[in-house]
């Protein structure tokens, strides 16, 4: 036990090297200029936050959200058929849960602390959601389905070797079940695509466009690198022309000009036309993202694989594309995120997506002038969607990361 120390070694004690105050001093007030910037920006920030909270608690009239909640989520889908949307949600939830379980079969703890915290937050949001009690219970059931699916998926993947393949097939089939639940027919009451709307339509268009534009984009990227002049020329012309035209012009052509070119009795569905436009547009951008990935793969890889006797399709499929796509994940996901946001442009052609249905709600004389509340709400929805995609892509990158 030392009571004294030699005075010659004593300097000022390092009291403020760790802890909150030290952090603040080091990062925010490390000089007169930084201090000034901190004070100015900090006061602006605080004023904005206080102003926002003041607005949100006093001026804002939030009843426009809960009273029109079904419209934001499913548009004009017939209320007596809402059970089909719940069935759809549960199918997707169960499949997502199973996939999650399958992907984390080698992780020691399925429900880590971070996961549990997020589950808890979601559960609280669902319990407090401004909807009638049955809906809140249904939402909680959905959450339970995801967790149960995850547990079952982990268990099944450890016992059944072909579980992953089965899951992939189930995802493929789920698309057709989704179409059946949304459009009806085969024993269900038909629902016209004009009744699809809100988040349902936004998600449907995004998912279908993403699924369709991915193979098209990869094919275009390969076509642009092809040694066949015709293929290369066609791919290049397509990419450059589509990238040179604004999406809104493409959608407008699809919605308004197309009927002039088609025979009078042919009527293409508007949703189909919008998906067509979104897919063709995104594919051109995606092709360039994938091409960036392709160019990052050294020529030696392809040469080595042909030296091993692999033909061109096998070289592409087994050696080049897996590496190229992995490199291109961030930019591909960036493209998908902007595709989700571009779906708001379909409101210009009259589809009741989240944006358009919000404007229709705002025209209800009961809610005129409630722009801020409504746009803030759909802004949050879009943020959640896009952040989820971005988070998913980071998980995918981490999973595919190979240490060289």
């Amino acid at each position: 036990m030392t009571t004294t120390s030699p005075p010659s070694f004593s300097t000022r004690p390092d009291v403020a090297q760790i802890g909150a105050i030290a952090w603040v001093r080091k990062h925010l007030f490390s000089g007169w200029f930084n201090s000034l910037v901190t004070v100015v920006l900090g006061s602006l920030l605080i004023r904005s936050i206080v102003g926002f909270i003041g607005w949100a608690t006093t001026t804002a009239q939030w009843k426009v959200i809960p009273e029109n909640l079904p419209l934001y989520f499913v548009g004009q889908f017939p209320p007596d058929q809402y059970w089909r949307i719940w069935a759809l949600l549960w199918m997707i939830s169960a499949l997502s849960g199973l996939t999650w379980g399958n992907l984390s079969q080698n992780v020691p703890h399925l429900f880590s602390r971070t996961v549990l915290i997020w589950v808890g937050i979601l559960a609280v949001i669902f319990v407090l959601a401004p909807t009638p009690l049955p809906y809140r219970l249904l939402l909680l059931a959905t959450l339970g389905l995801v967790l149960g699916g995850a547990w079952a998926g982990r268990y099944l993947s450890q016992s059944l070797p072909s579980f992953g393949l089965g899951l992939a097939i189930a995802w493929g089939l789920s698309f057709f079940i989704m179409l059946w639940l949304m459009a009806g027919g085969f024993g269900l009451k038909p629902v016209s695509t004009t009744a699809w709307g809100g988040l349902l339509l936004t998600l449907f268009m995004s998912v279908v466009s993403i699924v369709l534009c991915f193979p098209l984009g990869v094919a275009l990227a390969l076509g642009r690198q092809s040694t066949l002049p015709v293929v290369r020329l066609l791919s290049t012309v397509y990419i450059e022309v589509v990238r040179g035209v604004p999406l809104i012009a493409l959608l407008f052509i699809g919605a308004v000009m197309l009927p002039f070119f088609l025979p009078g009795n042919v009527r293409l569905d508007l949703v189909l036309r919008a998906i067509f436009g979104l897919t063709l547009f995104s594919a051109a951008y995606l092709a360039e993202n994938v091409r960036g990935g392709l160019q990052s793969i050294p020529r030696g890889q392809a040469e080595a694989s042909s030296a091993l006797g692999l033909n061109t399709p096998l070289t592409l499929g087994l050696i080049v594309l897996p590496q190229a796509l992995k490199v291109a994940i961030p930019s591909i996901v960036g493209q998908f995120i902007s595709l989700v946001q571009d779906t708001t442009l379909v409101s210009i052609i009259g589809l009741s997506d989240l944006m358009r249905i919000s404007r229709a709600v705002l025209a209800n004389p009961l809610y005129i002038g409630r722009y801020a509340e409504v746009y803030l709400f759909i802004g949050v929805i879009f943020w959640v969607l896009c952040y989820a995609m971005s988070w998913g892509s980071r998980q995918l990158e981490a999973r595919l990361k190979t240490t060289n």
Partner: protein
Amino acid sequence: MLLAVTLSVSALSACTTSAPTDTAASPAATGESPAATGVASRLDTIIQRGKLICGVEGTIPGFSFVDSSGKYSGLDVDVCRAIAAAVFDTSADIDSKIEYRNLDSTARFPALASGEVDVLSRNTTWTSSRDATGGNGFDFAPTSFYDGQGILVTKASGIKDLKGLQGKSVCVETGTTTELNLASRTKEIGVTVNEVKFQDSNAAIAAFQEGRCEAFTSDRSQLAAKRTALPNPDDAVLIDAVLSKEPLGPVTVNNDSKWSDVVKFTMYALIQAEEFGITQANVAEKLKDPNPDIQNFLGVQGELGKQFGLANDYVVKVVEAVGNYGEVYERNVGKGSDLKIGRGPNNLWTNGGLMYSPPFR
């Protein structure tokens, strides 16, 4: 794709000339039409299809919007319902017979000309160039709402009349007649204004509210609606100046009298029903009315409906579905709504308004 892009420009200008051939071709291509006249009409296509495709705006308070239960509502929407009731001879679950198509101001005319929609019931002003065959070549049904362009100004700006607009910025919706009217009226009196243009009126009023412009011009009915929704309605003043006549009504394509007559005489039937005092509540009773004019009107006797290629009692179904014009008006934009726009020129001619139907006989 390049071809489509270049075509889009030329097709935009050519849409008016190709429109009649397009619409005439559609029923012919689908095979035999029940029309006895030999000229294929859009009416036959609609009956065959079993649905009326009605173009509405979708975001105009009182005229067309989506209510909380997910149903379309408004005066324009009720006109669609009246037409569907006449065509399909039914008043029960009329929305299942209609496909509403949302159209913004740039998409509405190409959509009508290409046959995407059967009828436009979308706050469209009847003008000579839109009606003329050398112009847009459309056919206008009787006016469903007499409107006029007005100017809403902030009280703080102190603008009292058009001259006061000198040097001020004015929010205006682009692609509409309001934009043209503002330009020509201000030019006429030698006033220069800064036009701040917006694609839709909601964005324009939001900009006005935020103070990005001192005035906002639009049809007076819209201004009345938007003003009630401002946080402080008293801070905005609707000045007396009226820049234009804006008769708003349903529109169909030209060269299809059979179909446009149906639309016209559905509108007239709404007006005439009000004149006869026939309402949604008493229409069944009125069938027994001894007045021969009413008997003829309701199809109890005579051939009124059949002459249009409709059921003889189509007026009964129209009134059952939406009521008479007065009921439609009061429910959507008048006393029964939050807008509370007075009848004014939209009153019956017998009450000093402009609503007048030719005799049904």
